[in-house]
């Protein structure tokens, strides 16, 4: 067969015609009302309380389920951030808190309906909370930080009134109920799909949703995509703009960036930090950068293991790190610095994380090395996980180089995620870097989770009697001035003892097409589609 030029041209014409067929006015209309988010991770469950749920699964569940209450939002810089100090109603029209701060009475919206059309009642709320405290799930461990531990704390008053009680007035009791684990499930549907082995329908709810949220699940393919459709009967807030949401998994960050630049996708919150500055220059792209004020990146020492059980040695390392250089090389300064503050003794505010008084001072570092009993230096390893290599690798190189100057010979250890979590839990790593986040950004909560106890989150395995006492007291402290005093003291002790060194709060760079408006940085660091609109 001979191929002539005419045949090729004819073939190309046919191809072009075929490509032109889709895309009539109807499709263009629905495209404008569709939001396509691309992410490197996957949504692996519709039930966010399942152990192993991904962050993307959290994002979807926020939109599919409602909670009794939620956090408000406030303007910060050019964008919006969630506001942990404002609590607004979702399924609850209003909340009454008793004078002693132990009893919360929720008055439910009478017009709220689940996706199957049945009304949301106090029975459903009770069943949901019983599940959250009883079933083996992520919910139980989270909400116990707000003193929610047993089913007896929750009571149905009447069909639309629900009461929840704590023994002592816990500062985080109500904020915990705003978190996405406290979703309200359609108990009739869930019970119909429960089994004797699985009374809380955990297996069924992984793949099926039974909520009342602003969006219904249209299709769910773990590892590929989730498609949501707007619930037009939603009453718990103003109807969201987008009728359809596509949350698609695209593992390659460069591809995600291309899609947004060409306008084929609308939003991505997990692009590479190094790509963001150049993307921000493009005419069709908008970048909303928010320092993650409830997160922090740190360098942690194992305070229970030689050599870093030695406080002088930790102080020496803290004085030797080239903070500014690391910030520049690893993060391109895309975040809020948590070093270089000028205070000593008492911090200016009770907020945490806040900039700590850490500065590079090699002479002091060398003197501290001698005081620590290591005039000839020592050998150690510095570990980080493969997933964070983009920022941790340059950081590790600079840590190694700078510590060599005071005689600490560092071997860099890059570990797969599962392996590093095992080693951290077993408290076997001497020196590592991690980024962590707290959903409820209050100082005592940070200290309780990251600086006391035996859990993995206590990266430096710190066990300081004063801190233990302060956190236990602050949790139930109702007096604002006293609470502030306690928190400032905790921060001062942290600066003195350096169980870990705060480095920065990385920005969340939400990259979107020009027309997308209203993006809000949320505590769960995912997209709340209800906030967004297309201008």
């Amino acid at each position: 067969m001979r191929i002539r030029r005419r045949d090729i041209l004819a073939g190309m014409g046919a191809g072009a015609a075929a490509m032109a067929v889709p895309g009539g006015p109807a499709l263009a209309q629905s495209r404008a009302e569709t939001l396509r988010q691309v992410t490197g991770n996957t949504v692996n469950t519709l039930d966010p309380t399942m152990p192993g749920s991904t962050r993307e699964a959290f994002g979807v569940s926020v939109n599919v389920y409602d909670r009794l209450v939620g956090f408000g939002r406030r303007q910060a810089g050019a964008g919006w951030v969630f506001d942990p100090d404002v609590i607004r109603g979702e399924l609850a029209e209003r909340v009454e808190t008793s004078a002693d701060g132990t009893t919360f009475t929720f008055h439910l919206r009478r017009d709220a309906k689940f996706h199957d059309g049945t009304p949301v009642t106090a029975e459903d709320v009770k069943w949901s909370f019983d599940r959250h405290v009883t079933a083996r799930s992520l919910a139980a461990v989270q909400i116990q930080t707000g003193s929610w531990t047993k089913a007896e704390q929750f009571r149905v008053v009447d069909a639309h009134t629900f009461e929840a009680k704590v023994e002592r007035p816990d500062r985080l009791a109500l904020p915990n109920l705003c978190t996405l684990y406290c979703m309200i499930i359609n108990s009739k549907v869930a019970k119909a799909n429960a089994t004797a082995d699985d009374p809380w329908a955990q297996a069924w709810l992984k793949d099926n949703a039974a909520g009342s949220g602003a969006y219904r699940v249209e299709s769910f393919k773990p590892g590929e995509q989730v498609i949501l459709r707007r619930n037009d009967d939603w009453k718990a807030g103003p109807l969201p703009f987008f009728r359809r949401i596509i949350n698609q998994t695209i593992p390659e960050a460069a591809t995600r960036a291309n899609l947004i630049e060409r306008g084929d996708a609308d939003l991505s919150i997990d692009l590479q930090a190094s790509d963001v500055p150049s993307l921000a220059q493009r005419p069709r792209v908008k970048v909303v950068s928010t320092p993650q004020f409830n997160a922090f990146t740190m360098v942690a020492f194992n305070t229970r293991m030689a050599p870093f059980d030695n406080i002088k040695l930790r102080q020496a390392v803290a004085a030797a790190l080239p903070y500014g250089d690391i910030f520049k090389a690893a993060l391109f300064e895309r975040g809020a610095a948590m070093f270089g503050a000028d205070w000593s003794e008492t911090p200016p505010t009770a907020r945490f994380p806040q900039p700590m008084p850490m500065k590079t001072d090699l002479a002091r570092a060398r003197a501290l090395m001698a005081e620590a009993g290591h005039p000839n230096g020592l050998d150690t390893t510095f570990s980080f996980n493969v997933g964070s290599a983009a920022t941790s690798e340059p950081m590790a190189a600079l840590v190694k180089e700078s510590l060599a100057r005071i005689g600490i010979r560092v071997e860099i250890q890059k570990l797969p995620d599962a392996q590093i979590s095992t080693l951290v839990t077993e408290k076997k790593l001497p020196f590592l870097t991690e980024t962590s986040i707290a959903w409820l950004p209050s100082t005592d909560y940070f200290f309780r989770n990251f600086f006391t106890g035996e859990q993995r989150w206590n990266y430096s395995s710190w066990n300081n009697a004063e801190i233990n006492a302060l956190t236990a007291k602050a949790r139930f402290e109702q007096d604002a001035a006293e609470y502030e005093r306690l928190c400032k003291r905790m921060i001062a002790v942290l600066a003195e003892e350096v169980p870990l060194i705060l480095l920065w709060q990385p920005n969340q760079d939400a990259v979107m097409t020009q027309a997308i408006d209203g993006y809000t940085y949320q505590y769960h660091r995912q997209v709340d589609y209800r906030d967004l609109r297309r201008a």
Partner: protein
Amino acid sequence: MRGIAGRAGRRFVSSLPALFGVLVFTFLLMRVLPGDPAVFFASGPNAGQAEIEDIRRRMGLDKPVPEQLLLYLRDIGTGNLGRSMTTGQPVLNDLRNRLPASLELTFCALLIALVLAVPLGILAALRPGSVVDHGVRLLCTLGVCVPTFVSGLLLIYVLYYLLGIAPDPTGRIDIFASQPPEVTGFLLLDAAIAGEWEAWWAAASQLILPACTMALFVLAPLARMTRASMLAVLTSDFIRTGEALGLSRRRVILVYALRNALLPVITIMGIVFSTMLGANVLVEKVFSWPGVASYALDALLSSDYAPVQGFVLLMASIFVLVNLVVDLLYGLADPRVSIG
């Protein structure tokens, strides 16, 4: 025909011990790897020892290893490959959903590679040392040298980002196009069965870039092998005889030479196919292709045992199957060969 079926059956039975060995080996290997899945999946504040123990129990990791192995073998016997912690789905479902995507991609890539490699190999063999030969050698070297993620990203950059000819490289079908009803799982076949040619076109245009990327990578072994075995065959006596008898050059080359030269090419093809299926993880990642290889890699990174074991078992079975098919193809290419 009966003879072939019998042979195939015997071959299959004789491969069972190997499969069993692979099964046990992977099982033990996964447990030797550092990284405790229970710890990895227990996250959140206060996720202490109790939560970790609970997950360990749920994953069946609290029992001694020999007992775990026996339970695992029993599960496999009943067709249960366990549940993936990463996707939350039964591994069997995941593999069933994803295997067609991988197979479709691999088949298309292999087809493209063969269509290019065999003629190129023949051309190079007909004029060894000529410009054509060197050109083919250069192309093959380039194909092997450039890693698939580089060539993939390059193709995306030029054809999608700069020129806008290719559709966005995100999975098997345009996200806004309608999916054809599922029959075989192969989108091209399903769309053809349903007669939805728009969907067929959407799927084919998504497929072409990743398939070309993979084809480029395996061009070299196929083309080089065709060239080498053609060279050997072309110097044989029967070719000279054919030419002396005045047969047309085309008939000599395509019928007598090529058929005899195909045996090693078929062998290589079998190996290339199996390798592609398991090793195309980079292509799958770059093109967001929902295949089995990227699934297994994700599971491996989070020490999720069941999917990795299921994947290895699947690959081993496919390898056995491919070898069987290759053996049968030998018989077609050269009736003198018979595999007992």
